């Protein structure tokens, strides 16, 4: 019995304890994953979807963008079984943990947010815009109008603009060639995005990211989750200060707006901890 209890405690400490230890290394972990997405070995595995928002038009992309693939498949009226299955498995396991710890576009926004400027908060309802983007530009527009429509996701995506169009323009400028500008809408979104990342925490993720919208749907049911222990909570509201996304973690630890940066698990009283369904609990 004692041995079993010890094993249970160890299992609990493994996930929560590991998360606590890794918390200070989050930027480095994101940077390490960035190396994976940037294809340092020139593998160009573009017949496989990656789990993150990273444009496959980029010369430095290991995998295909799942959102791009879903939209392009929609445009040719074929259901993307592999891409959807992959996202469902990842979502069921991690939820938006991928947004907080793995996504390169998230890393870029996190780094920009470190610049000391006034930061503005966003109203709660703006989080639903992601579903407008997902349903509109990723599902409906590609299906009904094809990939030539100006609001097709890849034609307005700031990741594509930043990772492909801008380097191409720079290359053309350096080579003295005529510069091929991306369309005005894409350019406007890119400029707005580049301004917004300095004044709002993760504006793309919180406002418009269709991939985040998919992963967030799994937050309340994913295998890894944030656990709130009401008995340990002292109502100090320290977690409100830890959370940069205006979520009240004690009320909604697996909120649909949470990107799972896990900052709230810094709770001094262990009222908020990172857990998983794989732990044995008595």
């Amino acid at each position, binding site marked *: 019995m004692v041995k079993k209890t010890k094993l249970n405690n160890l299992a609990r400490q493994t996930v929560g304890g590991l998360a606590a230890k890794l918390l200070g290394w989050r930027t480095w972990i994101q940077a390490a994953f960035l190396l994976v997405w940037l294809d340092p070995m020139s593998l160009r595995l*573009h*017949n496989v979807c990656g789990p993150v928002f990273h444009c496959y038009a980029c010369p430095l992309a290991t995998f295909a963008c799942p959102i*791009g693939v879903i939209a392009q498949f929609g*445009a*040719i009226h074929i259901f*993307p079984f592999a891409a959807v*299955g992959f996202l469902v498995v990842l979502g*069921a*396991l991690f939820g938006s943990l991928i947004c907080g710890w793995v996504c390169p576009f998230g890393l870029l926004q996190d780094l920009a947010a470190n610049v000391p400027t006034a930061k503005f908060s966003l109203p709660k309802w703006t989080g639903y815009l992601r579903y407008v983007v997902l349903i509109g530009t990723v599902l409906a527009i590609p299906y009904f109008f094809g990939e030539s429509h100006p609001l097709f996701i890849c*034609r307005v995506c700031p990741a594509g603009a930043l990772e492909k169009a801008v380097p191409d323009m720079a290359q053309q400028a350096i080579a003295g060639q005529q510069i091929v500008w991306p369309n005005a809408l894409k350019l406007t979104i890119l400029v707005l995005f580049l301004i917004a990342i300095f004044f709002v925490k993760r504006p793309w993720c919180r406002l418009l990211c269709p991939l985040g919208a998919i992963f967030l749907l799994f937050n309340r049911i994913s295998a890894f989750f944030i656990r709130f222990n009401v008995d340990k909570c002292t109502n100090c509201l320290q977690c409100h200060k830890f959370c940069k996304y205006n979520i009240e973690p004690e009320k909604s630890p697996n909120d649909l707006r949470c990107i799972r940066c896990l900052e709230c698990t810094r709770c001094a009283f262990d009222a908020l901890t990172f857990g998983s369904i794989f732990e044995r609990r008595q």
Partner: protein
Amino acid sequence: MDLTDKKTKVIIFCLLTLLGVVLFAYGIFFHFTNISPQQPDDPAVRTASELALIKEVSIGGVTRDTSGELRQTYTGKPPQACPT
């Protein structure tokens, strides 16, 4: 349904994972599509797996034409990147 209950979470997780794995496996191993060549008079229709199709769409290499057929957008060397 209480989503904080561990048993419920485990059941939902298992069902979702099963669904995801089935979709993924079907896409990879059993889902094939016929793609016509760019030239309409060329009779050589090829069958592409979903993985091959992912690669093709990532460079804008396939389109659905007015007759409803999937058609390659290039002949010979594939484009470097998608047209968007």
